């Protein structure tokens, strides 16, 4: 038999794709290994990021050379990342369902096409432009007018009262993330609504249900797995978002949000903003600790994506 040149080169090229994922995990683990050993597990739940005295002489601690008083703990980053993404997902879900229903059920196909193109375009606006919009439009608007009013009116609700802050903070970051992930959820949902067996919808209509009631009582329960899967997928996207969060979150260091207006920082934004100062550390431990954050973020993102894909796989959505 002739050696299948085409087939084997195809396989060789294609295998670069999983290999790059493998290289990603391997490189990050190897590079951050000293930091992982030095920080151990309390890295994850202590609330204490301090590069130490960068003008002092490096000291030996537990067999590692670090700057004096250097401590690395990222609990505030984990809280900020999870809180902002979770709020964004909760806000995005009803918006996305609404937009999907309007485009799939609320109008004729010929009119829905251009409008759905426009929702898709929303997904393609670069994240740094979202960040710029948040910085230039949302932060002044929310910080000066909306948040003070909200904090005043909702002062009896936990986490909604208290100091309204400057506009940079948890809720602003969540709002920008919301607008970014709505198109993702909405596009998949719209496809799934269109793919739903028409016989089911017609059966509902013939029983006298309105279009909306058919959607609510027949279509949506059938799409429950899709909704859950695609929401988790969007959550994964929000967890890893860097530039938009970096520009509107207020970049808090070492404190936890006490209400929804408090400045926060997310893991991705922290990595992007801290490398310059980490490079000042002559022992290199700070850069390795940042690499450990990247590894943690990668593992969280991969876990979330795997769960979402498995759920969507079960629902047979590709």
């Amino acid at each position, binding site marked *: 038999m002739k050696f299948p040149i085409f*087939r084997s080169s195809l396989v060789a090229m*294609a295998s670069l794709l*999983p290999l790059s994922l493998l290289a990603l995990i391997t490189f990050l683990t190897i590079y951050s290994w000293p930091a992982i050993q030095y920080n151990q597990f309390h890295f994850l739940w202590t609330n204490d990021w301090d590069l130490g005295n960068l003008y002092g002489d490096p000291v030996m601690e537990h067999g590692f050379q670090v700057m004096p008083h250097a401590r690395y703990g990222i609990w505030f980053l984990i809280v900020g990342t999870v809180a902002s993404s979770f709020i964004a997902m909760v806000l995005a879900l009803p918006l996305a369902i*609404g937009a999907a229903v309007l485009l799939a059920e609320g109008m004729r196909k010929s009119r829905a096409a251009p409008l759905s193109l426009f929702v898709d375009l929303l997904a393609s606006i670069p994240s740094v432009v979202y960040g710029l919009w948040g910085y230039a439009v949302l932060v002044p608007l929310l910080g000066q007018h909306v948040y003070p009013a909200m904090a005043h009116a909702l002062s009896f609700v936990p986490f909604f009262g208290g100091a309204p802050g400057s506009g940079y903070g948890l809720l602003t970051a969540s709002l920008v993330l919301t607008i970014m992930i709505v198109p993702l959820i909405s596009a998949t949902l719209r496809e799934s609504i269109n793919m739903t067996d028409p016989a089911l919808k017609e059966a509902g209509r013939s029983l006298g249900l309105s279009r909306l009631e058919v959607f609510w009582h027949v279509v949506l329960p059938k799409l429950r797995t899709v909704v859950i899967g695609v929401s988790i997928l969007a959550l994964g996207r929000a967890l890893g978002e860097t530039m938009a969060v970096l520009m509107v979150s207020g970049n808090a260091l070492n404190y936890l949000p006490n209400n929804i207006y408090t400045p926060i920082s997310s893991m991705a934004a922290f990595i*992007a903003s801290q*490398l310059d100062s980490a490079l000042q550390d002559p022992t290199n431990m700070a850069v390795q600790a940042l690499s450990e954050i990247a590894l943690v973020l990668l593992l969280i993102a991969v876990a979330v994506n795997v769960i979402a894909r498995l759920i969507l796989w079960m629902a047979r959505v590709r």
Partner: protein
Amino acid sequence: MATEILETMGIKTVEKRYAPSWRRQWGNALGWLAIMAAFLILAGAFFSIIGEVVVKAFPVLRPALFAKITNGIGGGLKNAIEGSLVLSLGSLLVAAPIGMAAGIYLSEHGAGRWGSALRFLSDVLVGVPSIVLGYFGYIAMVIYLGWQFSVAAGVITLAVMLLPYIARSTELAMANIPNAVREAGYGLGAGEGHLVFKVLLPGAAPAIMTGIFYAVALSMGETAPLLYTAGWSNYMWNGHMTQEPIGYLTYVIWSFINEPFAESHMLAFAAAFLITFGVLMLILLGRWMLVRSQRKLGAYR
């Protein structure tokens, strides 16, 4: 009919129209109202973003913008425009062959376990945060390989990000070609390579191009993977692949908006304008190409 028969027989019928209860009517109205509101919020956000960028960028859209290089707080965007083009086209040159090979493999041989695994891993790769890719590029290329902030490091990092998108769009495009076409090719004695290059790829070209346009748009809009791989430079690119940083438009948006000068802010908005419209144009062009070619060819339908 039935009513008429009944009436001729002398039996009176009362016409009773079906009417939903008030509660259901109100529920419906409120539901549609909420749905309209959701859509209007999205539309409002879209037009607010586009409007803000256009209005703020408009005063600076002068020829000088394209003729001068940045100088720290102002100047033009010549170097950044060039850098963005170099980085996106470079990453496309790296990612397109690999991604298309993966897509061809998935559509032609992807039914088995290996195909599912590859598909799954490429979906996972889509979910990897871009800043993590950037940090990986920093460790692997900038430090370990000693390339410094450079075009090569930026291009390869971006390429890894684009791979799964190109693979996916190629797979979908190829899978849309009916099996009869493949059988006809093999029946005429074509080898697999011949069939793919001479028959399947030309047939799937418009759809693949749409995917590639999307990938270029994506790479143009990225910032996070480039911060620590491509670096930033105020000067034009001098042609070196390694050791020399390069500028790009998205960096201008992020860093110049933090400067306290009005001139820097205007430059940031001008960069945002160029990037946003570049991205939107690429995506619309890709869509248009796809629709047009499908109409022209009938695309095996």
